[in-house]
């Protein structure tokens, strides 16, 4: 079809007239609409307007984030695929490649937590296996309001069930994640899911529609009216009546079909009958088809009348923008469509030829042969205007950060009571209520299950393994976005080294409020710069990620939450260690320096109800030295356990190592006798969240070696105590204060806190 003819596209009977109002409803500004006119050389049809609206939404077009994302380091010798594809891919040795990515489903989860979270997992799995990798693990990073609200409990339990039911059914083990509860997330929870997949380095395939004449095939589930304009929806603030407004948008997941799609896709990719494959995710057929065309520089032509549908009377607009789940767009080699169909039939899936690859660089859509959209592909996929917004820090935040907290540091003497109250905080208590709803051992590769610092997966027929973690403390980021983002990267890396893995690469999920607000854009810019600095420093390039903006309700934004998903490699996975103490009499050693820091801590939130002060400072140089020391210690098999100090501070690191496991299958808790010396407040000493610290335990005879090796790395190390007997006393003392509690009592509180909160409305 010639471009001359393409210049005119008759408007389709029954489609609404294009009006300024309609354009505005589609979230396009006047300038953006001008740009559309420029690209087309004529007014768009209704269908074309929908296409532009979706492709130029925040979700697909990264309007307000692209310029910031360019600051992130993306390169390293081991990076095979950086940002821009369905997922990043790195070389992990032994001819293996790891594909991994994190994705958010915040808005859908706020409306329908079960389906929203479930389909979030479905989407990230597809991003991984469309790279040619077999998913081997998932993690989930969650943020919710305080659990005293029934609505929050409903959202939280629904999301956890959704994540579990989906991943369990597909058969991908969950190896970790995080959850954080704070008022700031009350109306707008965050549900981010991360997936890791493995392939041989030469099995990678990309989302490209190449080879003129090749056939585009729609594969998997049929197309319904689900989630139409989900992409735009994900880019709007949740209105009070979102439930109502977004009803027809709810996407229902079918993990069973996903499992078939997973097996079929991998078989297809290995078969060589296809040249490209992509998930029909956000903006469905529109984005998959146009992006595949854009990437390869060719064009595509599809006829929506050939797309298998679930509902009658669907318009081109609806078919193009539907976000029905468990669908793929596949580019089959010309003449090999039958082989493709045969493979899908074996997996009881449908495949329809819906179009072909062209050489005219256009994204052309027909309905029964009649052109309904005809757009140059590159301007559509790459031409989305990007903005640099004004960013100014909110003075109120400055005031909070500078607040004087010396008063709260005054508490002295017996702090056992405080400790017991904090143990009941869902942010500090065991997360087993969550991860015991997730299959963590299917595929029989899980070396470290959720509950420790990072999950670990082994690779059969090699000695290798990979560790993964997600981290971010939204309070730190709220009080100081730059330091907070650095802290997130540092903690992620620290979690990895604690199991013996070398931090290797990063995926990230930027969860923020509206970028149109200077205070929010400031947070975004600062956080991204902090992340960039830390990632460059640790040599952990960012290979991909996701941006979720407009996370606000009633104008109230969530905390800036740049979630870091980090992966690390273990050359000898048999050396991996956990965070739980291993035997009575072992020496307990604290590596790293404790400062008098209490700002942004869980202690402040629970005891004073405030989020204020300077968040713990990150000293990147000290962090790196600490991490190298811990890696060396684990490599030399000197340690029995290692656990990083994070929320709750030193005492919680000790408590978690003593309890060993948060679950129904947790071991007997250990007692301990610890004495810490620092010339300042016991509150800061016990509950302060200074970064760059790791609690390790080792055979008493090796303590000297451990301290020496630490010193070699210029890491301050102190032997602070000894592991006591099973069910013994947990005793931590400092010059000005002490904690003395039965370890069995700690284990009980730690394990029962979250179930108690959740089962308020359960039998």
């Amino acid at each position: 079809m010639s471009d001359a003819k393409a210049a005119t596209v008759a408007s389709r009977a029954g489609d609404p007239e294009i009006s300024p109002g309609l354009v505005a409803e589609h979230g396009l500004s006047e300038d953006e609409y001008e740009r559309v006119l420029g690209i087309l050389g004529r007014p768009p049809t209704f269908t074309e307007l929908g296409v532009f609206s979706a492709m130029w939404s925040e979700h697909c077009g990264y309007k307000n984030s692209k310029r910031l994302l360019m600051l992130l380091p993306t390169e390293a010798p081991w990076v095979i695929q950086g940002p821009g594809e369905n997922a990043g891919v790195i070389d992990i040795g032994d001819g293996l490649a790891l594909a991994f990515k994190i994705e958010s489903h915040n808005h859908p989860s706020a409306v329908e937590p079960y389906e929203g979270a479930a389909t979030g997992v479905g989407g990230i799995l597809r991003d991984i296996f469309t790279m040619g990798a077999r998913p081997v693990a998932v993690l989930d990073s969650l943020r919710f309001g305080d659990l005293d609200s029934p609505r929050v409990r409903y959202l939280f339990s629904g999301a956890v069930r959704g994540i579990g039911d989906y991943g369990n059914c597909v058969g991908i083990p969950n190896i970790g994640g995080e959850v954080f509860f704070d008022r700031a997330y009350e109306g707008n929870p965050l549900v981010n899911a991360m997936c890791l997949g493995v392939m041989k380095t030469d099995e990678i395939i990309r989302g490209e529609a190449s080879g003129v004449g090749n056939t585009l095939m729609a594969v998997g589930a049929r197309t319904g009216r689900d989630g139409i304009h989900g992409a735009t929806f994900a880019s709007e603030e949740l209105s009070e009546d979102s439930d109502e407004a977004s009803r027809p948008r709810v996407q229902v997941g079918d993990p069973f079909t996903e499992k078939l799609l997973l097996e079929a896709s991998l078989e297809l990719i290995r078969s060589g009958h296809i040249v490209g494959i992509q998930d029909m995710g956000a903006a469905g057929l529109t984005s998959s088809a146009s992006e595949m065309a854009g990437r390869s520089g060719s064009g595509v032509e599809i006829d929506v009348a050939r797309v298998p549908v679930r509902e009658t009377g669907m318009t081109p607009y609806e078919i193009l923008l539907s976000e029905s789940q468990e669908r793929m767009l596949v580019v089959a080699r010309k003449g090999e469509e039958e082989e493709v169909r045969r493979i899908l039939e074996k997996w009881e899936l449908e495949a329809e030829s819906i179009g072909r690859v062209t050489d005219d660089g256009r994204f052309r859509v027909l309905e029964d042969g009649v052109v309904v959209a005809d757009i140059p592909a590159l301007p559509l996929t790459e031409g989305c205007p990007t903005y640099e917004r004004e960013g100014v820090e909110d003075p109120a935040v400055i005031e909070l950060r500078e607040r004087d907290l010396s008063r709260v540091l005054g508490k002295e003497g017996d702090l056992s009571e405080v400790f017991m109250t904090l143990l009941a905080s869902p942010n500090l208590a065991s997360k087993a209520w969550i991860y015991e709803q997730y299959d963590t051992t299917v595929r029989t590769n899980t070396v470290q299950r959720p509950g420790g610092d990072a999950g670990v997966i082994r690779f059969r027929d090699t000695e290798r393994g990979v560790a993964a973690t997600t981290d971010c403390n939204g309070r730190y980021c709220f009080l100081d976005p730059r330091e907070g983002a650095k802290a997130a990267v540092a903690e992620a890396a620290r979690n990895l080294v604690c199991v013996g893995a070398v931090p290797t690469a990063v995926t990230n999920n930027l969860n923020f409020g509206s970028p149109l607000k200077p205070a929010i854009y400031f947070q975004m810019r600062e956080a991204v710069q902090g992340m960039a600095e830390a990632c460059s420093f640790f040599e952990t390039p960012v290979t991909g990620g996701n941006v979720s903006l407009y996370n606000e309700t009633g104008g109230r934004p969530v905390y800036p939450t740049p979630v870091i998903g980090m992966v690390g490699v273990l050359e000898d996975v048999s050396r991996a260690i956990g965070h739980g103490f291993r035997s009575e009499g072992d020496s307990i050693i604290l590596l790293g320096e404790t400062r008098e820091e209490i700002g942004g801590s869980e202690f402040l939130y629970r005891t004073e109800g405030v989020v204020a002060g300077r968040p713990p400072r990150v000293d990147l140089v000290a962090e790196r030295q600490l991490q190298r020391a811990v890696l060396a210690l684990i490599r030399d098999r000197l340690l029995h356990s290692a656990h990083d100090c994070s929320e709750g501070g030193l005492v919680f690191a000790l408590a978690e190592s003593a309890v060993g496991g948060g679950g129904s299958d947790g071991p007997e808790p250990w007692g301990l006798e610890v004495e810490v010396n620092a010339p300042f407040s016991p509150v800061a000493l016990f509950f302060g969240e200074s970064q760059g610290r790791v609690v390790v335990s080792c055979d008493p005879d090796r303590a000297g070696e451990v301290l020496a090796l630490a010193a070699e790395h210029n890491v301050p190390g102190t032997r602070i105590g000894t592991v006591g007997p099973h069910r013994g006393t947990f005793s931590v003392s400092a010059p000005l204060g002490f904690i003395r509690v039965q370890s069995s009592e700690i284990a009980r509180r730690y394990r029962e806190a979250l179930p108690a909160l959740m089962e308020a409305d359960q039998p």
Partner: protein
Amino acid sequence: MKVAVITFPGSNCDYDCYKALQLLPEFEPHFVWHREVALGPVDAVFLPGGFAHGDYLRAGAIARFSPIMDAVLEFGRSGGIVVGICNGFQVLCESGLLPGALLRNESLRFRSHEVHVRVETVRTPFTSAYEKGRILRIPIAHGEGNYFANAETLAELEGEDRIVFRYVTPSGELGPGSNPNGSRHNIAGIVNAQRNVLGMMPHPERSVEPLLGSTDGRGIFESLAGHLGGIPA
């Protein structure tokens, strides 16, 4: 000896079973797709865990009608060794090869963690390598593992020594906290009257390597190897 591992659409522990079997030199495992109608010459059949046909309607309800199931029933009824793990157990109950049914967990929640089960009988081809009363630490991962059968059936199972595994506390009691899903009589696994068909909810194939935390499940595979080794092919 040849072991068929049946793969249903939605099975996701088939590969795990296959790998666990391979750890013993006696076994030559191979996959059999559910659409096959014949088993061929095999010494044992494994129905693996997972979500066959998505577990829609009831776990195992649709899978039991897969074409291969006629051959499996035939094989089991004529004394052939059949092992159903988790979803496989559910399929065996739905198909009638084992009595009873597996209802939703009492908590209504999927439960995934290690449990302790007590070996209640060693008079089976699956447990002869254990000593009676041995306590095993093995993971469960299921939403519908709540074993139910009517009073007569339960009495039969008890009377005929057909309860193979029972959920217990770490110290081996049946007391509170021992039962993860509400199963009658704490039942975690049973055999049929001829004792050649085993169904169990816990995942022994996940407990066969030290690196993965426990080897308590090995005994089942070793017992089987011993038993089949004793049978002249």
